[in-house]
């Protein structure tokens, strides 16, 4: 926006999307502030601008046109835009569901989990991040505390730690919570067969697929 030239809503959405896609922090601030100044609905700006940009990032990542550095930079820009627009939300964004996410116990690898969180957030999911090295009881306790969780999502990078996923499934069964949530898993050593073996509901090979699986599990397109 140079000078006081008024921008159309569509142009601002396009700028927000481009800013995220290019990882351009300056542009995202400029476009997000313009959206507020023009009285554009913040919810719409997030969905049509920031999230649209992040969806394109996901598509590029899936096609191996983008790699982790590009995704992480875009994710930072996305967060920057959210920070500006969020206080101006007049209503909650309709969410497909709440996801409780963590890297299982004895595993400190969280970069994949963090990217899945960004992609899920950009798709409207509410995500509660339990962090890394998360024991089974932490998943159980958080569900009890929050009350309504739609999906428990777990990540593991090593065969050393992947059996921790089964421990979480067992802990949920023991506490009578298993039938109240869907369970999805992912990470380098995880496979569909392992997912079936431990009795989880969904497996995703990468972050973009993670969004598709999460949507399927909560019954939305």
């Amino acid at each position, binding site marked *: 926006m140079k000078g006081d030239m008024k921008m159309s809503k569509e142009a601002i959405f396009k700028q927000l999307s481009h800013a995220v896609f290019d990882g351009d922090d300056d542009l995202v601030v400029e476009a997000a502030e313009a959206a507020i100044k023009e009285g554009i609905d913040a919810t719409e700006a997030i969905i049509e601008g920031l999230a649209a940009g992040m969806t394109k990032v996901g598509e590029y990542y899936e096609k191996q046109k983008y790699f982790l*550095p590009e995704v992480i930079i875009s994710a930072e820009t996305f967060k920057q835009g959210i920070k500006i627009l969020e206080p101006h939300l007049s209503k909650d964004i309709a969410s497909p569901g709440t996801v409780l996410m963590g890297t299982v116990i004895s595993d400190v690898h969280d*970069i994949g989990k963090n990217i899945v969180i960004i992609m899920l957030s950009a798709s409207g999911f509410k995500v509660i991040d339990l962090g890394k090295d998360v024991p089974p009881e932490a998943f159980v306790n958080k569900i009890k505390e929050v009350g309504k969780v739609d999906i428990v999502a777990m990540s593991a990078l090593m065969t050393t730690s992947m059996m921790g996923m089964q421990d979480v499934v067992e802990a949920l069964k023991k506490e009578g919570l298993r039938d109240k949530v869907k369970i999805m898993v992912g990470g380098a050593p995880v496979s569909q067969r392992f997912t079936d073996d431990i009795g989880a509901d969904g497996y995703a090979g990468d972050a973009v697929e993670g969004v598709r699986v999460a949507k399927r599990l909560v019954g939305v397109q």
Partner: protein
Amino acid sequence: MSTEQMTCKERVQAAVKYEDIDRLPVFKGYFSPARLVDRKMNYSFFTDAEAIAEACWQAWKYFDDDGIHLLDGGFMEEEFGADSIWPENNYPMINHILVTDHEAADALKEPDPYKDSVFTAILKATEILRKKAGDEVMVCGFINGTFNYAARLMGTENMMNYLATDPELVHKVCRKVADAQVRYAKAYGEAGIELIFMPDATSAPACISPKTYGKMALPYLKEAVKGFQDAGALAMYHPCGGEYPIIDQIGQTKADIYYFSELVELDVAQKIFVDRAAVAGTVNGSRELFLGTPEIVDEHVKGIIDRLKYRTGAIIMPGCGLSPNCKYENVKAMVDATKEYGKN
């Protein structure tokens, strides 16, 4: 040639040069054999040279494969100044990220292999094993990849960010890591190591683009490989994670063996590198070796071997490192299947 006419060492050396061999060589791969000597994989074990040597020796005897593999125990990060956590029966972890800016990168200590408490134990274990092994079998060591070490010092997510926003910081850390890798390799060489395994998942396409790989990682990986070879060891490089997009570039490292994950077909890799370098790996460490049965492993290994065009120039081994709680019977099945189906 009939079965078992060569020593393990002769077999591996000949396979690397695409010479005639009695059968394909097989490596059990890299995992802690501590439980073979009733020990937990912890700091006490990693600093006990006699126990390491005994465990590695027992592992070679038990699995009856073609190499003695020193486990993933070197911990150069501590020598750079990182503080660490040593979980019971798991690999050590960095407690805090060490490098967050140029000042911190400049302040990194210079790791000295002869002061590293873990590595000095490994060097002593190497000497013990070399005496025991004689000319029968190679003693194989482990030095992590340049980007793997750098990521542990900077934090993987931060490092990915710096690659886009401050590549000079990544260069600065990699410069120090590559120099340290060469120093460690030299010390390994003096102890008699014959092969050095270098995994580098952080520079693979699962993390960075082929373009970034060529610009940011390849120059240091080349230096590390040359350092290993100058130390008198074969260099086995493992670009772990969706390797195909960089398969045209990895040959520039001039490693002796390219070790691939299950995401690469060993027969395809062999055709690419024929007469230039041996290829290794591709046995699925999770689906078959961790979750499968000996029968499943047998069929999987047979398939890999049957598809090979050349009955040399390839080493059968797990597609990546295995966890300490892997099923030994499945690893044994991989070795037995190679001996059965890899005969010439």
